[in-house]
């Protein structure tokens, strides 16, 4: 069986699950996120504009913030024991304030020579739809 020693006596194996976490942002969190970016897109803070002009059912959770949660899913699992070296993700389903989102994932490939693992991660909505799928590469020790 292919496996990697992380730090004694920890090991990572194919199919290992990443811990689930729940995200239920409110409009204060969404405001603070877009404020630190300097993102004035009204669909993130102006509910009247968002529903009446743009036709969305509610304030739209910012796509990059959902992307951040995918990163957190991997990093919280690593807990400082490895390094996230790449992430590929997309935003597939629009999510709105009031929804509860969940993250999770699992280990899909291991390379014991390079000490790298590929991890599939996702953010799902309450209906089980994949809001944002992602794939990360993590490194458990410096090469060489």
């Amino acid at each position: 069986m292919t496996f990697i020693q992380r730090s004694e006596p920890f090991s990572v194996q194919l199919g290992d699950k990443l811990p689930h976490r729940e995200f239920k942002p409110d409009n204060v969190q969404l405001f603070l996120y877009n404020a630190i970016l300097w993102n004035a897109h009204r669909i993130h803070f102006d509910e009247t504009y968002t529903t009446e002009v743009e036709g969305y059912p509610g304030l739209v959770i910012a796509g990059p913030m959902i992307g951040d949660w995918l990163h957190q899913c991997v990093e919280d699992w690593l807990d400082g024991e490895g390094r996230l070296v790449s992430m590929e993700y997309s935003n597939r389903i629009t999510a709105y304030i009031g929804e509860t989102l969940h993250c999770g994932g699992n280990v899909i490939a291991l390379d014991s020579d390079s000490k790298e693992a590929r991890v599939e991660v996702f953010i799902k909505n309450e209906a089980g739809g994949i809001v944002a799928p992602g794939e990360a590469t993590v490194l458990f020790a410096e090469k060489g």
Partner: protein
Amino acid sequence: MKTLLSNELLENIGRQSCPQRELVTRRDIKKYAVAVGALQSKYVEGDQAPPLFHIALFWDVVGLNTLSTDGLSKDPLLPKFPLSRAMAGGSRIDYIHDIYPGDWLTATRTLTNIYEKKGHSGPLIFYEVDMEIINDAGELVIKEKKTSILR
């Protein structure tokens, strides 16, 4: 097949933004980490920048008079496309070096590709923007490829 992509439009491939140099501060890291609900103390305390912090660091600080009614501003890197409705795209980000308070980072964005695909309900235009972030030693810190879709 008739294409939406004129030669004039495709000539914009390779267009590059002016390099943008910014200082990473502990305060901005903390604000970002709190806003995204980060749990790890190194991020919440501002000792190290979390992975997607560069999005906040390099988001254009535009003037209020440049915002349109929806609150967005035009990206000066992009040409006028014949389609305008944005669909969700994707990103690939390579993290080469960690980022700490006090780091000066410089980002350069390049429009690297424009192409067309046939969608279920009509043509789609894809475009790719690469962002390279280097430190003051000239080392590559982050490399990002963002693919956007218009319909």
